[in-house]
């Protein structure tokens, strides 16, 4: 059995776990813990402390694993471990929380430094009233026009599929240009 992996990363509460849940054929193996910080607990009850793990079986011989990283900086010791051997990565950003954009940019740079593999940025929660416009986010996240910044709703399977496909197209394009 051959296996490949992709990493889903991003700031705290960006929607990484939900993203993986939307497409994983197994119940996501989640290492969530109750949140101890009062300010973070206002946003959600539990958070990922080591990783989320989802699976998509391609055929008899190939499996794609999806790894979700913990969002808080204090767990960043896991990031490099999770990034080892990844085919590409997705940076999830909560479009409705501009205070996390700088953190998202920093995470993107960190992961790109770990491994220069293709990546896409998913502007999640685009269905929320306060969501920022994609092009405004591109500007604030300092993404040049070559970086794919895609609209995303993590609980919508078709939206998640579109993100994964765009990442795979980028991987294929990179292989074909031989970069």
């Amino acid at each position, binding site marked *: 059995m*051959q*296996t*490949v992996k992709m990493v889903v990363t991003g700031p705290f509460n960006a929607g990484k776990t939900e993203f993986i849940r939307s*497409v994983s054929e197994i119940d996501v193996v989640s290492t969530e813990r109750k949140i101890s910080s009062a300010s973070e607990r206002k946003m959600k009850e539990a958070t990922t402390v080591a990783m989320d793990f989802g699976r*998509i*079986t*391609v*055929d008899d011989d*190939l499996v*794609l694993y999806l790894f979700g990283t913990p969002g808080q*900086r204090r767990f960043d010791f896991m990031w490099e471990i999770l990034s*080892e*051997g*990844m*085919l590409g990565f997705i940076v999830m950003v909560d479009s409705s929380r501009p205070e996390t954009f*700088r953190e998202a940019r*920093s995470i993107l*740079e*960190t992961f790109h*430094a*770990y*491994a*220069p*593999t293709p990546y896409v940025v998913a502007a999640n929660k685009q269905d929320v009233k306060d969501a920022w416009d994609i092009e405004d986010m591109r500007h604030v996240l*300092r993404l*040049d026009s070559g970086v794919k910044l895609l609209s995303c709703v993590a609980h919508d*399977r078709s939206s998640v*599929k579109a993100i*994964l*496909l765009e990442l*795979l*197209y980028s*991987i*294929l394009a990179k*292989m*074909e240009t031989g970069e």
Partner: protein
Amino acid sequence: MALRGNLRDFTITQLLNLINLAHKTGALVVEGPGQVAMVAFREGKLAYAQVDQEDSSLAAVLHKANKLNSGQYRSIQQRAAHISDKELGLLLINAGYLSQDDILVNLQQHYTDIVQRLFTWVEGLFHFDIDSLPPDERICIRLDLEDLIIEGSRQMREWEQLQDEIPSLDMALKFTDRPGANLRNINLNVEEWRVVSYINPRNTIKQIAATTKMNDLEIRKIVFGLLQAGLIEITRLEGAAPQAPSVRVFPTQDKEEQKSLVNRLITRIRSL
């Protein structure tokens, strides 16, 4: 129990707080990054500070503060090297050249500058020696530590934020590809210009800091400012071997098989 340990476990701010609350007398010796500092206290108040062999004499302090010009400084070094700072201070006061306040304010500024420099030291050993006193020939002050502790806490927060923004000094810097950006039209201070002059994807931030003789905090502050201004961006060190993934990305080394594998993934995701 002897007060000794590592700055990783006990910060300078915490040490000052302890010295202040316990009204300690003695010298705190800190072995930092390539330097050793000695800060003396009397009954919990700052009395004196010195880093390595840096000249903390009254003449040097007044020269640095532009209270003595270079000629006067040289003359004192040549003719009055044998007299103590206390005697020199009295001579300057009696000659009507400086007031007692001038002398104390400048010494206070010099000592607090040294203590504030210590706030940027996050690695190093320290010990508190109750028998150690400032050299006899130096002038001591009596400065409450509260303001320094507050300033230290503020710097610690700033330091933590800068570490989040610039997690590694092993990365390089490059100018952003903005056709409209023109460095000559931007007002940078001398320190910023020094850093800008070394920005090149072949230099790590750490190398720039070493060349410009800046500590981690100083270089991070400047790089952060330039990043915020959109003038530069962090990049991988040019010429460095790309980090080979320690785990294989593809289960096969054959390029065609790899493409086939990605196409199979695409087909599968489409069918979800």
